[in-house]
């Protein structure tokens, strides 16, 4: 997953010349403006809901990519943070805490849990770490199904004394997604980002140069968990009802990973694109193929890893450079 993809090479190195030079810097702002202005077009509630859910997926996917993409530690266990964020937020809102603070608490609890999980599991390398995260994820789901004070398997309801305004939720989701992408960009350009990639490429060699691989992974895990936890919280407040089989589902953990891989693992924009692809087609696929949707996503995953490990982003970069070459000739 890590050798073939041209991931990690700084974006500037692959940037085009001329007017195209400004595209990478301006495009995110344009996209953000379009999303912010979208409600002016008066979309239906179902479209807004779909976009809202997709924006929370962006935050999760970008968060996962900090650890799984930049640092190469593939975790199947991010549903734990999603669920913990959702439950913490739900309990906090019902306890009278303002929603924004409740999201922060959700993020904090998820980050704290990531440390508890990371301390033992980061002693394992590669696939062993991945397997451990599956175990942790399932264990937490089973525990949460049996905890009586959050309703156990029957779920938990959020009661808010404010009127439900869908568009407010949409903007919360947009803000969170923008925050996630902002963090991702800052991390990639920072000293910490360099450590993440060094650890991904060769943990021991990185350590020989003074990088502490253990704390590097813990920090990336915590950042990713916080973003995923906040996304769980934002979603929980919107849904007003959560249950362990929903928010702690193993399939959520797989979906988070799938999004990065579809879009382009280890890049800044890959997880964003992947989240949109997944978010927008997932519902249709589930609706048309209720029995076979997992098979379809599984096949997609295998095809991407076999033929285009750099995902949609890698594919479009290739097509773009072909287009530029054609134009020159």
């Amino acid at each position, binding site marked *: 997953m890590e050798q073939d993809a041209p991931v990690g090479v700084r974006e500037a190195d692959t940037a085009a010349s001329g007017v195209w030079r400004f595209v990478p810097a301006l495009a995110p702002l344009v996209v953000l403006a379009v999303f912010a202005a979208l409600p002016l077009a008066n979309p239906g509630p179902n479209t807004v809901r779909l976009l809202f859910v997709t924006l929370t997926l962006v935050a999760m996917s970008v968060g996962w990519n900090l650890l799984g993409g930049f640092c190469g530690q593939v975790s199947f266990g991010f549903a734990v943070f999603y669920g913990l964020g959702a439950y913490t937020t739900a309990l906090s809102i019902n306890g009278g805490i303002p929603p924004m603070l409740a999201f922060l608490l959700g993020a904090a609890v998820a980050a704290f849990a990531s440390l508890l999980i990371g301390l033992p599991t980061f002693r394992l390398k590669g696939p062993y770490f991945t397997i451990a995260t599956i175990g942790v994820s399932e264990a937490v789901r089973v525990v949460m199904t049996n905890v009586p004070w959050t309703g156990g398997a029957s779920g938990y309801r959020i009661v808010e004394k404010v009127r439900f305004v869908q568009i407010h939720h949409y903007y919360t989701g947009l803000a969170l997604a923008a925050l996630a992408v902002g963090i991702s960009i800052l991390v990639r350009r920072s*000293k910490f980002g360099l450590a993440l990639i060094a650890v991904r490429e060769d943990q*021991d060699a990185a350590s*020989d*140069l003074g990088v502490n691989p253990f704390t590097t992974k813990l920090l990336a895990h915590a950042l990713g968990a916080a973003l995923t936890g906040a996304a769980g919280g934002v979603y929980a407040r919107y849904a007003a009802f959560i249950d362990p089989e929903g928010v702690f589902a193993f399939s959520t953990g797989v979906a988070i990973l799938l999004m990065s891989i579809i879009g382009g693992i280890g890049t800044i924009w890959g997880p964003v694109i992947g989240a949109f692809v997944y978010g927008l087609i997932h519902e249709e696929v589930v609706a048309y193929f209720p029995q076979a949707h997992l098979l379809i996503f599984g096949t997609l995953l295998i095809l991407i890893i076999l033929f285009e490990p750099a995902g949609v982003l890698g594919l479009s970069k290739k097509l773009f450079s072909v287009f530029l070459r054609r134009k020159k000739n």
Partner: protein
Amino acid sequence: MPPILQVDRITKFFAGLAALKDVTFDVEPGGIYGLIGPNGAGKTTLLSIIAGSLRPTGGAVMFEGIDLTKKRSFGAAQVGVVRTHQIPRPFKSLSVLENVEVGLRFGRGRGAGNAVHETMQILERVGLAHAYRQSSARLSVGDLKRLELARCLAARPSVLLCDEVCSGLTELESGQVLDLLCDIRRSGTTILYVEHNLKAIMKVCDRVIVMNYGQKLTEGLPQQVQNDPAVIEAYIGKPAGK
């Protein structure tokens, strides 16, 4: 001058096999120390222990009052003891420049000063400046060896541990790398140089430690060691009929 590095009765067992037995020697600051011995003598194992990437079964390695065997490799690098790898281990998805930046930002200097400027200086010093933007995955063996050295230099070591920096290189390239080692010593870095190529060792080392079967066989000036019957026996074997 007090020694900069004291290797004190280092012992290492792999299961029941003793890879190192009570190896003791001092390294004085500012020299190139050669560590030689036939294949399997325990040279690289010893190097890994000094660098903190392997824990010994017993013994200590003292550096500026710190026992390096209590540290992990990143800890050793942060106080100024850095190793190269016999088989280069570049961070393949990073450019040559970024590879060196890792050493600069996380080694002893911790990224003080202008990173790009300093990185380019180091690349010029090892003769790799022309390739700074290249992906490190596309370098030749010779350039990969240079990159290993450049990354370590960026970490500002007081003691540089070199593991067979000439293996796989042409005669010409070896010469350049050995000149580089001499240049590094002149700038004040002490070098412990593991090699089984005797010619390279004799050319640059101030002092040579010979190992065989996990033990220190002898120690001395290159000429002394070269003519020591015990060393000749370890490398070539006993003359027939004796």
